[in-house]
């Protein structure tokens, strides 16, 4: 059996809605969504700055030891806002002294829901059955973040034996 793990912060980052989940000892301790409503919709840079500020609050509250990130994949064209988001998140993790591991969404879906383009409900169902969370009400972004965290834990936990 694997030993207890330090606190992990998992993110499903986006410039408008970011799901986050905190894992403590291989269980979801808390999760939530950082949103930016239409009234606050500014430029991508402004939204990312708001996201970073919100992440600082989450990190201060839970004091995670590492961060797992679900990053968009499969896009065959460059999306400047997403590139900016990834670089800003990497910079935030460096500033906070948190090791950041990013996994492509397709890789997480393939491993968790058995298909790289599995729809969101299938991913949520696979996660809730694997983590014994059936019946828990969470949003799509939270399930995505939980999937990223659970995938990271399964990789690091299996590697540690």
């Amino acid at each position: 059996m694997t030993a207890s793990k330090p606190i992990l912060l998992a993110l499903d980052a986006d410039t408008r809605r970011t799901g986050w989940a905190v894992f403590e000892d291989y269980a979801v301790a808390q999760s939530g969504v950082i949103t930016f409503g239409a009234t606050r919709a500014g430029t991508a840079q402004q939204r990312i700055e708001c996201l970073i500020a919100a992440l600082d609050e989450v990190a201060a509250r839970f004091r995670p030891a590492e961060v797992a990130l679900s990053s968009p994949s499969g896009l065959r064209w460059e999306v400047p806002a997403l590139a900016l988001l990834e670089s800003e998140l990497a910079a935030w993790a460096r500033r906070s002294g948190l090791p950041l591991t990013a996994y492509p969404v397709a890789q997480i879906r393939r491993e968790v829901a058995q298909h790289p383009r599995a729809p969101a409900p299938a991913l949520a169902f696979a996660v809730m059955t694997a983590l014994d969370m059936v019946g828990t009400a969470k949003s799509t972004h939270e399930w995505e973040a939980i999937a990223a965290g659970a995938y990271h834990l399964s990789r690091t936990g299996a590697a540690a034996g």
Partner: protein
Amino acid sequence: MGGLPILWYQEFAVSRFVLRGCPRCGGDLFLNEGDWQCLQCGRYWFNRRPQAAAPSAFLSFWRERAGHTDGGPSAAEEKSA
């Protein structure tokens, strides 16, 4: 219409497109990395079935965490026996 005609297209398609082949909206399908995708509604029609027989490393890990495995006793149960 179900998914069956699309599987048939996959067998005999000479190009990467099936005009008006989407069972949902009637849009044109194109072959995207082994799966058909509708150009009109964006829906994917998967050719491959989930591999339920071979659980991924992810599922194996979390099943072990939950203390049970498919069909056999868990490590804890084996120890206590």
